[in-house]
């Protein structure tokens, strides 16, 4: 084995150049960044175990698992986003990126199937006054504040790419999980959609 340790590469490492791009007239209308220190895992309830799973999650992580398209926050940087009936994406802020599966599996054994997806998804954060307008150029769901609020989540698509989006705050700020192999095209389209408003890209961003 070659001596130096194996280097990790974030999905957007080569693509998300920091800087101010697009229209330069006013202040940047869109802020873009990649979240690189978050662990992800899919969690699916075992047959007839939903109730037990919800209870176990409550006690182990301090939050119920959302039963509609929402995100729920638990202890120590853990959160769960609804990902379909009896399915969730669990997220762990500040990693370790690979460390989420064992942590969940330990508490949910027999109640849920847990699969590490930390490497399967890139998580992009988009915020700013014109974030909604930029996302409207590829995403069919209504992100208006009357229709979609912080904590709300949706499984949908952006241009031709399936995404998982949830709102973080009223700025508005959103996080979008994208299958890793698609992230190059996704970033290309997102930045083209944002260029009209001027966007600021900050390479990586801490997950919390």
């Amino acid at each position, binding site marked *: 084995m070659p001596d130096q*340790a*194996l*280097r*990790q590469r974030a*999905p957007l490492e080569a693509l998300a150049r920091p800087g101010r791009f697009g229209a330069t007239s006013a202040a940047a209308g869109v802020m873009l960044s990649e979240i690189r220190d978050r662990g992800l895992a899919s969690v699916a309830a075992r047959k007839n175990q939903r109730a037990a799973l919800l209870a176990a999650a409550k006690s182990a992580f301090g939050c119920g698992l959302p039963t509609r398209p929402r995100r729920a926050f638990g202890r120590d940087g853990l959160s769960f986003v609804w990902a379909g009936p009896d399915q969730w994406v669990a997220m762990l802020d500040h990693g370790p990126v*690979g460390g989420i599966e064992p942590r969940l599996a330990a508490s949910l054994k027999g109640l849920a199937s847990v*699969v590490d*997806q930390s490497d399967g998804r890139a998580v992009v954060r988009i915020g700013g006054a014109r974030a909604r307008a930029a996302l409207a150029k590829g995403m069919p769901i209504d992100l208006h504040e*009357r229709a979609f609020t912080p904590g709300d989540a949706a499984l949908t698509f952006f241009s031709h790419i399936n995404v998982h989006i949830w709102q973080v705050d009223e700025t508005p700020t959103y996080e979008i999980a994208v299958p890793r192999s698609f992230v190059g095209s*996704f970033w290309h389209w997102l930045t083209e959609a944002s260029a009209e408003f001027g966007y600021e890209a900050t390479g990586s961003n801490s997950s919390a």
Partner: protein
Amino acid sequence: MVDAASNKPARAAAEFAPVRQTAAAPSAASPYRLATGGIVDRSAPLLFSFDGRNYGGLRGDTLASALLANGVRLVGRSFKYHRPRGILAAGSEEPNALVELREGARREPNTRATVAELYEGLAAVSQNRWPSLWFDCMAVNSLFSPIIGAGFYYKTFMWPASFWEKLYEPMIRRAAGLGRAAGMPDPDTYEKAFAHCDVLVIGSGPAGLMAALAAGRAGARVILCDEDFEFGGRLLAECRDIDGRPCAQWAGSLLAELASLPEVRMLKRTTVFGAYDHGVYAAIERVADHLATPSPHMPRQRVWNIVAKRTVLAAGAIERPLVFGNNDRPGVMLGGAVRAYLNRFAVKPGTRAVVFANNDDAVATLLDLAAAGISVQACVDPRGADAGVVRAAAQRIGTRFVNGAVVRARGGHRLRAVDVSAVAEPWHKLTFPCDLLAMSGGWSPSVHLSSHLGGRPQWSDALAAFVPGPLPRGMSVAGAAAGEFGLAACLAGGAKAGAEAAGDCGFAAKPVAMPGIGPEPIGIAALWRVRAKRGKAFVDFQNDVTVSDIELAEREGFRAVEHLKRYTTLGMATDQGKTANVNGLAIMAELTEKTIPATGATRFRPPYTPVAIGALAGHHRRKDFKPTRLTPGHAWAQEQGAVFMETGLWLRAQYFPQPGDNSWLDACNREVTATRNAVGVCDVSTLGKIDLQGTDAGLFLDRLYANAMSSLPVGRARYGLMLREDGFVLDDGTVSRLAEDHFFVTTTTANAARVMQHMDFCHQVLWPDLDVQFVSVSDQWAQYSLAGPKAREVLQKLVDGQHDISNTAFPYMAAGEVTVGGGVPARLFRISFSGELAYEISVPARFGDAVIRAVVAAGAPLGIRPYGLEALSVMRIEKGHVGGAEINGQTTARDLGLERMVSSKKDFIGRVMAGRPALLAPDRPAFVGFKSVGDGAIGAGAHFLPVGAEPSARNDEGHVTSVAYSPTLGHLVGLGLLKGGSKRLGEKMRAYDPLRGRDTLIEVCSPVFYDPEGARLRA
């Protein structure tokens, strides 16, 4: 909307124009430009060119108004007879004034001058004429018009048959068509966007403005669209008072309030062109068509998908021409258009006018013409007593009123006079010299969007027009579009519709105060055609459809409205018959002596006006046509100079060229040889990967795969074969058992999505009671295949010491979890596609780049080479594995020689149907290998023929699926599907390939060319 009498004289426009007024700029100094008035910006002169000549216009002009301001009347030629044509209308309904706008790669044929917003440097040329607009040779067609009437081409050009493609058709095609495509890629960009609202208001005339205001004040999310580049609709074109203020000024204050409402979005230059199901509307926003080139980071156009809970259609109405002899002469114009040019653009469309109308709309035209100082020679109205207000208006401006009809226009390239026949003395023809005829045949509500979902417009005798029929759910119609003619009715109807729409969305609207409006007569008496002896009477101007064409259609039985359209091409031109359909239908009704409703009603289809194809494509063109999927090792492969190929959405390394290679084959051979003799590595991250868990996971897999999976021991892998329910092979792949209740499945790259869909269906729909959960992990894992006699040696350098991967500890078809590079979790599978000692190792994708580099570094001393799809394919052919060319959806397990994999002990998807007679027929082509006899070339797609048999379908015995040159064996090796299959080993056949001019002798053999006993992969 229809507007009628104002009993005040037109006032100095400076009072009410929202746009700043200044002294006339020099470039606008023209006898046809009024010194004051209109909403053009006299401080912003613009230069433009038409047919190579330079002219001056003003900001706020359309190309049409600017041409009129420069005295240009002749702007185009008609489609068939190449008649000289001028400007008929002032909006998107214009049939005549089509030009090629812009130049080079940005050329846009068939652009309506009446909607082309003027910008500095605009360049336009006329089209469909040769050599020039003024002198067009094709105008001789007019002479043959008796022969080349409606549908003449169905009756001739039949002899001799071979002449059609050679002579007739090229001739016709050159003559037909209008403008010319640029022929080059479009340099501009386009966007698509989604919008959501409570209330969508289509049109910003009086009705639309009031609707938007009522809904907006109530707090609803409102989107207001108008196709024009100014909001206000007819309010900009008319000279009326609202609440004692000029209507355009009044509109300005409403617009200001709308702009101040946070939930109201106003989209000008935006045409809602289609109504679709469930309240979805498609609109096109012309973001940059009013500029020479789009600004940086801006698209040229944007297509909106608008999802609206409620919609108010306030699209106004379109004025109808009157049908009489030579009614297409340049200078014959719609009355409403004349007023628009006078009041909005401050342009005189002529110097001496005649007004001809069958309705009270003539009043406003008369007054506005007089106010602009244009002498009105006569006012012609077929109505007698009913024409009172018109007669009065004529008197007021001292114009002669004639109760009669214009029977014929005189002049060629421009109108010189009109012949009028008076009711009183029809024998005595009156002739009035003029260069402008303002005509009105009444107004047709713009019902188009109301019928896109199939609702038939309904006929109103009172209005002599079609009004909306059954409406799409959620749509209401207001103003002139609803047949509410008259300003007051429009304002009231709009306010009501807007309030109701907001109410339906849960927003209580306070009533909007109705402004005071003067009296407005809207009387009309239908006049569908003036029976003219001489001169062509045009119904569809753009397609040159005349009354006699409709008469011929009637004579020949094309009386159904759709037959009429299709046979005469009435309403099929780029204006979709906006000014022609109703006249045409009514004339057919007269001819068949039926009522208009009994004759039919044209239903409209999207788009309302033509939409740029590029806008509907949006961003998705060139390299962005579809997303591109890249593996974690992509950057590394690029550094190695890999040549990539598209496989589905993925880019995969095809081969790795080296300096000195003559062709891809050199690289491919090198990669195969290196792998067979030492070791090679291939990125297989694109394989579909599925993680399955649950107590029933094994049972679930048993039902999915033709072979048993529940019997698979933990720590082992197995090839799997999946059938469709109809018995044909769906996919092959591998299943590995990581724990009692935990499996890892791979699918082929091509079928990954289809297999996932299939598994979801089987679980969610067929067997929801099973305790199994699965999720795609295709993107989670980077996966590499290490193959070759030295594969283990390389691997041992990577895998952390504590893991024993010796042949005994980790034999063929073993599977397990290991760590590499000091603790990085990895999965190792001893499976081989190449037939060599081989492993597939997968690591979390973030390590994918590092691991492939580490593998190559570790393998370098052992002569490792990366290999691509070409080498992969050669090795699988040498080994006789089926691939995409064999699993083509038409083959069964039996066809592919895989029946041994099909379990007879259990039920599984496809089992029963695989046993149907047709799928067991002995003469089905089955999987074989073959070698070339001699050195003839062979290509996949060649068919197998018996030696000496004549080439015919009867003698077709199968086809070549895959061929490759085997550097290992030094000759061509091939796979195919041959009737009789393995029963024919040793037979000589022909690989018949006439497409490529080949006919090669082959010998059928076993498909396994290399290491048939499989010793190497167990080594």
